[in-house]
């Protein structure tokens, strides 16, 4: 019996964005299995890097895996284990975070975290006229967070925009709310706020609203959460733009991987998702009302 098995390994739904990833992965799995009875897609979530390595071992233990779609927790930690899977002849699709050794992956659907930071930064440089005071909220200390901050700082280079403060808020709206309140207490003048994830932006917006402070021109996020896209569509002056980092990239990757078991030639190489600026004009394209994210 030659039923083809595609395993999908993604982080557990611990916050909004990963929740979106799980949602899209499951959607893709259902759709593909309904359309192609000869393909089976198993989605597995893991709450940590080492759990993900374990999940890989479990998925390959039975030895009948044809393809693996993986959104790694971190590049360094998963490179070795994915290598072992690849060595068994499994087709490897890596999503979002590339492995340290690019040779391993057959297909790479890349998100661009650096671009998320730099696109936002460039927008601010432009709108604030090259100068001003901004505060930044970052997530959980991981590669993604690090890259976004790095991109943001690169984007500000050459301008007179001053980053007053960067603190962790763990991609959690409550912690972001508290942190923003404290920023507001600490800095009498803030021109703009960047939270490197939309979950946190929700908290930031509430804190700003409660403070009644009016000098803050922009509060921006990133990731493309539907609540924020709605704001962009509505032309919200505080949050006029958004940078997408669509969790649906996992769906794209699963479809591209599945295609080869459906008679098409396997797609190899790199598919780069850029992080274009979402504005009121193009917001509609990035709006998925049914997605939980």
């Amino acid at each position: 019996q030659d039923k083809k098995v595609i395993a999908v390994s993604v982080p557990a739904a611990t916050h909004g964005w990963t929740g979106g990833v799980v949602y899209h992965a499951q959607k893709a799995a259902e759709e593909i299995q309904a359309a192609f009875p000869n393909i089976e897609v198993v989605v597995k979530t893991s709450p940590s890097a080492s759990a993900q390595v374990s999940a890989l071992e479990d998925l390959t233990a039975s030895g009948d895996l044809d393809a693996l779609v993986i959104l790694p927790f971190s590049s360094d930690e998963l490179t070795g284990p994915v290598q072992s899977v690849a060595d068994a002849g499994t087709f490897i699709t890596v999503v979002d975070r590339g492995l340290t050794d690019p040779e391993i992956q057959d297909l790479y659907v890349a998100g661009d975290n650096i671009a998320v930071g730099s696109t936002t930064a460039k927008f601010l440089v432009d709108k604030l006229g090259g100068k001003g005071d901004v505060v930044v909220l970052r997530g959980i200390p991981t590669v993604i967070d690090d890259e976004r901050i790095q991109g943001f700082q690169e984007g500000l280079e050459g301008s007179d925009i001053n980053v007053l403060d960067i603190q962790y808020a763990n991609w959690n709206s409550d912690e972001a709310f508290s942190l923003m309140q404290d920023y507001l207490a600490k800095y009498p003048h803030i021109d703009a706020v960047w939270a490197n994830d939309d979950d946190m932006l929700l908290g930031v917006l509430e804190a700003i609203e409660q403070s009644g402070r009016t000098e803050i021109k922009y509060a921006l996020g990133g990731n493309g959460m539907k609540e924020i896209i709605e704001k962009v569509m509505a032309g919200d002056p505080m949050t006029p733009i958004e940078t997408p980092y669509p969790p649906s990239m996992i769906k794209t990757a699963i479809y591209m991987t599945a295609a080869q078991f459906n008679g098409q030639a396997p797609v190899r190489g790199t598919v780069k998702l850029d992080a274009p600026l979402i504005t009121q004009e193009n917001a509609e394209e990035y709006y998925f009302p049914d997605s939980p994210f």
Partner: protein
Amino acid sequence: MTDITAPPVREPLLQRINWVDIGPFVALVILAVAGVLINPDFLSATNITNVVTRSAFIAIIAVGATFVISSGGLDLSVGSMTAFVTGIMIMFMNSLVPSMGANAIIAGMALVLCVGALAGLFNGLIVTVGKIEPFIVTLGTMGIFRALITFMSDGGNIPLDRSLREPFRPVYYGNFIGFPIPILVSIVVALIGAFILYKTKFGRRCAAVGANEDVARFSGISVGRVRTLAFVIQGICVAIAAICYVPRLGAATPTTGQLWELQVITAVVIGGTALRGGKGRIWGTVAGAVILEMIANLMVLSNFISEYLVAAVQGVIIIIAMLVQRFSKQP
């Protein structure tokens, strides 16, 4: 031999002060002084109000935890229970909006109190009927509640109906005679908690069960019932915290209440309640919750701590706060 017949001497004031109870407040004052030195804005009305208001959730839940802990239990599930009951409440309110309008809020509040009590009952029954360590039971239910909210929200979030946001908002952002509502709520909860723990039969029994289960049993106290009830009180406190919480961000997410359990237990212990049970200190617990929030606030307000090291400094301060407490206990 006749010492008892001597008229009781009024003890001097200094000795009558209960130093153990005072400990956390001493720590609080020292922290506040340090705060002003670090950043003069610290004592601004807005900042202090913000900090105290924010500490309300932890304080309210920790009042419940004081019962559980002083009766010899432990509840690790409070954080995810908050997320779970919040989710239930929002979904229920949203579903009632078409028929009831803003009254859905009242109905939702009533429901969440029941759900909280039931969730607490669930924990309590497994602990007492199954006779399993509370640590393990609530670690298990922590996973269960967290999974349920993730499931209910499909991993995303459960937003409150827009039409309810405005009428509900004052519950977090509103004031009453100058005090933010959450502060008032937590004072009321603490007052009721203190009343129950110190002034009712149940409170006495709670402490007795925590101090020595055998003595309690031989004194005619139904140990299982008292323990279970402590968990139910914990559940109700979680529900009250959830009611104050929803209007703040207007949504429940799988990250709601994450790691609150650790904060709650820390607040209780900093407040002077021993983890092994037998004695609960409601007001110390409230002070403990404020201390925690204040430390976090000071971390942001100070300028000389690398963002990477914030957690380290917090850890150090918590340990120092405990030391201050210990030494203020010996007058």
